[in-house]
């Protein structure tokens, strides 16, 4: 190199390679205490700019814990949610309905797995989350502690319960600040639309059927309407987590806002098939365009959440029995993998 040239080139500084980390984060890396405030400020600025937080990004420990709690409960709800409908797979009235129901129940299992997968990026172990569900120490959506008494209940679950879930999950897919959760919700929402539509189709068919079928559809609507409204969680005034979740961009809307959105969507659908929602106070507020609804029985909600719903114990027992009965499948899979590894090992040594 000509001598003069080095003078105009910047000094060469060897760049050390970045520290290599595994792709999934371990529990939030401890940061030096002095920089915590600065990191928190930067984190909140990122949220304010609408940026998504990814597994290895720094996050406040409380943000991580809130997400683990929320995603764990959500995943458990998908898994327990298979039980009320699964009870009707063998009794579906036609092959077409049976196919939809099987596919829907399988989807719910898949949704549980998407969300457990997302939760694992926060440094928790899927195995531990499932253990909490089986031990009864983790919560899941209160709605799944109600019984499915007739075939119409299966349709109403698709229409109401999945409809309510779509309202919640669409907001999460669009706005949730935690990337893996938002991405899991995008997948879930694509599939839930089929769940809702097949449920509504099933109810519309019953509503246009014989007088007995009509009565059965109306009875299911009457029993599921209020528990579905409770799915959105306690009213904003009694929801200790909402403000924090909104501040950190995990949630965009409050429980009451989402509940109102669901009511506004569902009332015209019920009217379209000539079914009545069991609320004498329901009326359209011309000024806002919202359907105003009557008071929710929050005592019932808290009783179910605290374990005293119609089927809390039965659901937990069924889930535990299913897990135990699947034990031989897990043992067989591990034994098979071990056998293959044993056979591969001598071959590899010989090569």
């Amino acid at each position, binding site marked *: 190199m000509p001598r003069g040239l080095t003078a105009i080139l910047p000094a060469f500084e060897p*760049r050390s*390679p*970045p*520290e*290599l*980390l*595994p*792709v*999934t984060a371990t529990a939030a890396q401890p940061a030096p205490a002095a920089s915590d405030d600065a990191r928190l400020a930067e984190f909140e600025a990122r949220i304010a700019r609408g940026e998504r937080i*990814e597994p*290895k*990004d*720094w996050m406040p420990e409380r943000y991580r814990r809130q997400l683990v709690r929320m995603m764990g409960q959500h995943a458990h709800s998908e898994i327990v949610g298979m039980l009320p409908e699964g009870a009707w797979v063998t009794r579906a009235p036609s092959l077409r309905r049976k196919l939809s129901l099987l*596919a829907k129940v*399988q*989807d719910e299992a*898949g949704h549980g*797995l*998407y969300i457990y*997968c*997302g939760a*694992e990026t926060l440094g928790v*172990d*899927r*195995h531990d989350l499932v253990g909490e569900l089986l031990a009864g120490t983790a919560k899941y959506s209160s709605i799944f502690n109600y019984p499915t008494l007739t075939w119409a209940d299966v349709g109403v679950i698709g229409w109401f319960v999945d409809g309510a879930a779509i309202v919640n999950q669409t907001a999460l897919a669009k706005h949730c600040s935690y990337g893996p959760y938002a991405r*899991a919700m995008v*997948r879930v929402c*694509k*599939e839930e639309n089929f769940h809702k539509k097949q449920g509504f189709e099933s109810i519309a068919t019953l509503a246009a059927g014989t007088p007995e079928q009509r009565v059965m559809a109306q009875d299911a609507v009457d029993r599921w309407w209020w528990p579905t409204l409770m799915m959105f969680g306690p009213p904003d005034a009694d929801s200790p987590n909402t403000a924090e979740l909104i501040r950190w961009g995990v949630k965009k809307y409050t429980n009451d806002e989402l509940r109102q959105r669901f009511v506004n969507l569902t009332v015209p659908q019920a009217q379209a098939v000539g079914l009545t929602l069991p609320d004498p106070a329901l009326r359209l507020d011309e000024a806002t365009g919202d359907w105003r609804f009557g008071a929710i029985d929050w005592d019932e909600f808290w009783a179910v959440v605290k374990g005293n719903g119609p089927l809390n114990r039965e659901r937990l027992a069924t889930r535990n029995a299913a897990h135990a009965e699947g*034990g031989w499948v*897990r*043992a067989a*899979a*591990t*034994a*098979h*993998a*071990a*056998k*293959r*590894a*044993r056979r*591969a*090992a*001598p071959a*590899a*040594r010989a090569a």
Partner: protein
Amino acid sequence: MYGDVLTVPGESAAVKLDGATAEAKAPPTAAEADAAAGELLAPDSQWQLWEVFTQEAQGAPHEHAGSVRATDAAHAIQNARDVYGRRGKVLSMWVVPTAAISATSPDDAEPFFDPASDKPYRHPHFYKAPRGVKGV
């Protein structure tokens, strides 16, 4: 059909970092396999984590879909099909042990990738052509 399929031709799904790729793991010895089997057979032990990549259209790239737990690669492919391929959109699927992927860290992102944003001469708009000349 989806047995020993884990050789991905052409490119590695593992994130490559300037020559620093994940070290290929040596196949286990018989003793190691037995030890692993003993561990796996413990009641309800957690299976290994695998990252799943799916290709949704002919000619499209394989993109990260999520993860599954499985005992080995063939099992991971089966689980991945059931979890991420229920809607018939998937043409091809890769699974990679999560532990085999190396990645940059968010703190390093700026010093590590910045040099690339300081080189406008790598782009065509850095260069001028006489007025009226077309197709350059």
